[in-house]
């Protein structure tokens, strides 16, 4: 790692941490503001009951998601994504697509720059689309989204998005595609409602194991080097 690289990554972590904690404060302004405005605070026992259901569901997934997204999106992209949300269905594929187009890879300074710009632009675009939609088109969109014709398009955004994104990867790495896709299908046959965070973690692990087998010759010296380093 070059010296400038070290400095830049360190700076991104400082910026990310500061924005992250400001975001935490801003997030709490929402329920506090609502409770103050309405002079209505939730009953702790009811809120506790709701959180007992939600926390195991989302906090465990959050740990898996952090471990999955940091290596893919880089520091800046991850800090931004976790504040602005919609990661798996928007920020992640957007960051991956931008790095693919720019022909840079993650965990390099170039990858960090491209991924961060893509995710920040995506966050701004989403904010604008939602704000304009809410303020100007709420009546039109409400009827359009419930119209069965348009509903078919809106209900199939993810197959369209990941089909197109998948094609650009599969064309280059077709050998790697079989194991994770089949693993995903089998997992859903066993547990059809498995959350995407957990399913993604399983298919990533399956994909890397598949890659280890297919590219045994490349991985051998690398793994030996790692084990020596650990000793």
């Amino acid at each position, binding site marked *: 790692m070059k010296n400038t690289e070290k400095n830049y990554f360190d700076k991104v972590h400082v910026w990310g941490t500061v924005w992250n904690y400001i975001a935490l404060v801003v997030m709490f302004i929402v329920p506090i503001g609502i409770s103050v405005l309405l002079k209505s605070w939730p009953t702790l026992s009811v809120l506790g009951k709701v959180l007992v259901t939600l926390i195991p*569901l989302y906090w465990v997934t959050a740990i898996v998601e952090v471990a999955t997204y940091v290596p893919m999106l880089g520091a800046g992209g991850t800090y931004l994504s*976790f504040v602005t949300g919609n990661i798996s269905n928007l920020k992640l594929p957007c960051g991956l697509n931008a790095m693919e187009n720019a022909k840079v890879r993650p965990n390099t300074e170039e990858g960090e720059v491209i991924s961060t710009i893509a995710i920040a632009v995506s966050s701004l675009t989403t904010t604008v689309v939602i704000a304009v939609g809410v303020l100007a088109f709420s009546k039109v969109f409400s009827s359009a989204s419930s119209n069965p014709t348009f509903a078919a398009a809106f209900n199939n955004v993810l197959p*369209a998005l990941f089909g*197109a994104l998948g094609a650009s990867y599969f064309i280059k790495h077709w050998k790697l*595609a079989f194991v994770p896709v089949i693993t995903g299908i089998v997992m859903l046959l066993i547990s059809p409602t498995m959350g995407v965070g957990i399913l993604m973690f399983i298919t990533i692990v399956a994909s890397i194991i598949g890659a280890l087998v297919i590219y045994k010759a490349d991985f051998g010296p690398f793994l030996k080097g790692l084990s020596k380093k650990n000793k």
Partner: protein
Amino acid sequence: MENFKSSTGMYAIALLIIAFIVAQSMFFIIKSWKHGKELGIKKETLVNTVTSSILFTIAPAISILVTVFVLAKALGIVLPWIRLTVIGNLAYETVAAETALNNLGGSLSSEITDPVQFSTVAWAMTIGAIFPLTFLPLVCKKLQKAIGGAVNKDEKSAKVGDIISASAFIGIISAFIARAINGCSTQTSTDGIKLVTESSGFISISTLICAIILMLLFTLICKKASWGAKAEPFAMPLAMFCAMGFAVLLTKVVPADISGFTWYTIGEELKTLL
């Protein structure tokens, strides 16, 4: 009090959130752009990243907007707008709101008229979602250093890093492809039965195949045509929009019993295929 869900105060909170998101995004764009130039990344590459990211985002953002309107029936327009602008996520917000309302004896299918219920939903949505923000700064640097250090050490490690990155990317994409092939979503009814709310089937699989074929076709055209390099960033969003259009076309031209086929029957109790 009946309009409390879209009062001026609520809009003021929404504006504050939007201002924060814009400020944070602009900060990172400016810093990254500056550093990109220092690294010698061409201006054209940076501009292409911006253009293709805008195009890429439009369709999923419209789909997020639809979720705002779905939640608006119960929660008013402003709270879902705020929630889907920060941390929000299509699946998470719906489940969090529904769980909170079920505990209060309500549901998303009916409008909230009680301010206490409304503030409980807002608190539940927030606390449920904030966990990553509390621990991300503690692990992000260590995680990135460990991975970056291992894969950027030398040329051989870089090649392994490329393979791991590609296989992890494909792993992510595969999860969504599998869900388009045989996934489903459920909602638990008041008597504890898992009812199917969404299921993959004929249309989702056809849309997926259409998107793959179109993307391969557009990639080929971009490689062969003299203007191909300039058009490349637009290939993905175009394939995505065309595939969504294809889904609409199928529902119009294919008989309803075929186009409406899903692996799991919507509205009925979930029965696994195995």
